[in-house]
């Protein structure tokens, strides 16, 4: 497999926490810190950021010391790039089509694209599922629960 992913996962985990912690502390330092008796809005962010950074170091540190064998790589054994893309693509389409098209196209596109992510799915099966969910969704959310979300923008349905 790829060489750069054979490093221990905990190094990445610790590194990420260190990064997030330092980031939070630095951002928090921009707000008024105050004193213990009169804490400003920056007090908690800085303290928590420092604690998180410290925990990150500890996580990476204990990984350094442990002799346990490598438990897994960052990427799963069979990365599902297409599946992930579909799962991310669904809500993105929901946002875009919901904003400019309305509920019907948004729901249909979201379910259709998400369903395509499965290895066994076909265009036909995904379309049938998406159509079914759209009908169900419109009845439940538009006619029963009355959420303010036009079915088709520009048409008064």
């Amino acid at each position, binding site marked *: 497999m790829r060489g750069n992913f054979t490093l221990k*996962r905990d190094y990445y985990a610790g590194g990420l*926490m260190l990064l997030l912690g330092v980031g939070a502390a630095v951002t928090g330092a921009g707000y008024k810190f105050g004193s213990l*008796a009169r804490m400003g809005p920056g007090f908690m*962010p800085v303290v928590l950021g420092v604690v998180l950074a410290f925990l990150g170091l500890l996580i990476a540190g204990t990984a350094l010391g442990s002799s346990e064998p490598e438990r897994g790589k960052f990427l799963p054994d069979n990365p599902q790039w297409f599946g992930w893309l579909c799962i991310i693509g669904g*809500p993105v389409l929901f946002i875009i089509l919901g904003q400019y098209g309305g509920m019907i196209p*948004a729901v249909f596109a979201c379910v259709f694209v998400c369903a395509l992510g499965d290895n*066994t799915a076909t265009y036909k099966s995904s379309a049938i599922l998406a159509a079914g969910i759209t009908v169900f969704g419109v009845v439940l959310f538009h006619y029963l629960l009355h959420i303010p979300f036009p079915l088709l923008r520009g048409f008064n349905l």
Partner: protein
Amino acid sequence: MISTAITDLWYGFGVALEPHNLMYCFLGVLVGNLVGVLPGMGPVATISILLPLTFGMQPVPAILMLSGVYYGAQYGGAICSILLNLPCHPPHAVTCLDGFPLTKQGKGGTALGITIIAAFVGASFGITEMIFLAPFLVKVALEFGPAEVCSLMLVGLLAGSTLAKGSPLKGIAMTVLGLLVGIVGSDIETGQPRFTFGITELFDGVEIIALALGMFGIAEFMNSINNTETVDLRYAKVGISDMFPSKADMKLAFWPMIRGTLIGSLCALIPGTGPTIASFVSYATEKKISKTPERFGHGAIEGVACPEASTHSSVQGDFIPTMSLGIPGDTVMALLLGALIIHGIVPGPQLITQHADIFWGLIASFWIGNILLVILNVPMIGLWVKLLSIPYRYLYPSAMFFVCIGVYAANNDMFQVGETLFIGVVGYILLRLDFHPAPILLGFVLGPRFEENFRRSLLISRGDLMTFIERPISAFFLLICVVLVVAQIYVWLRKPKIVAEEQAIEAQVPTSSYSELA
């Protein structure tokens, strides 16, 4: 004391039996039972999806329904474990060990029957525990000042992160991350926007539904897409008549049931040890004290009765710290606490007196809900079994629809959908790095209150940190924190026997592709 409890409970039944409330309680347990059966759906995601739909409702039916989802899901979860050997709900993972062998022997119906009885016994005890313990806790908690509340929250946060699954260090890191996410938005005292990066939509803070559905919805689907086992329905044929256990089976299961109930109710009282830990501990105990431990793992009815009873008694007991102290013990409780806050109810010891209808109505609805679940599960078992065969490829796109529209409906704002997606992707990265998402939600919900009380207690003491040690109750809580940390270091340095045993059992449970459906 008993007479006041009975009067209050009577009042509670009056609230819970109002047709409107009864209907939502029924709806809650039905939905809960349904998602409990479906492999790949968890109560956390379901409650988050339902939460925005309750905005227009009165708080009482809303809370009854959302709680119903939680304990209803526990009834469904066992079906998956026993009939399919799929531990898709962590509290029922250990039930696979003896439940599935029983199914293979053609005794799956008996196992399910015993499960339902054990569930009812466990739940009844858990509810009774709540009736008597919660008012007592409230009496103590009403004396708390901000310093005590702060220390108590620290216990809750530390316990929630270290006693859960996975590395305790990573759990604490996730709690701190949750606290940081809770800071996003305008500062309560000065109005200064923090961590908003100029995005107006973030001034009100991160939406709890977006966080929960990102972490437990989208991240979870990314984890299990094309990665689920094919469901093997070969043995899953159960009729109603199979479900009544014989006298011999009942006799065998009786004491394990009682022991499981007691272990579960104890676990519920220790913050951070939810139903999952309760079920593992009780299985280990039962195996140890059994005269025939070699039968365990090959279809011992005790191995089903004991963990199931403890799961259910722990699930009901879980509500005690949440409702009486305002300190949630796990993810679902954190979410329910969030629901209370959204409905304008301040959680804490004053909840029982100020919102008696919610508290006693909830307790009464537990009884009603559990009875409804027993009634639902016996005749409808055939339907539940059919539901098991719904393939994941239909399930997750439908769930994605509910996630999108649920988040949108919370504020009628597309920005929240994007926020959920972002949190979901980050959540998946964290999941791959072996971080468990549950403590994030805990930290997120408690964060703002923790900061408020921390500031207030230091304002009172004029910046003297000793106030946390000088006040005896606060010092006691801090001592518990120290004990928790020391215990973790001890466990890390030399794995004691109990932990090793529990890990041995955990290793036997079939691995699940559904990683963290709390």
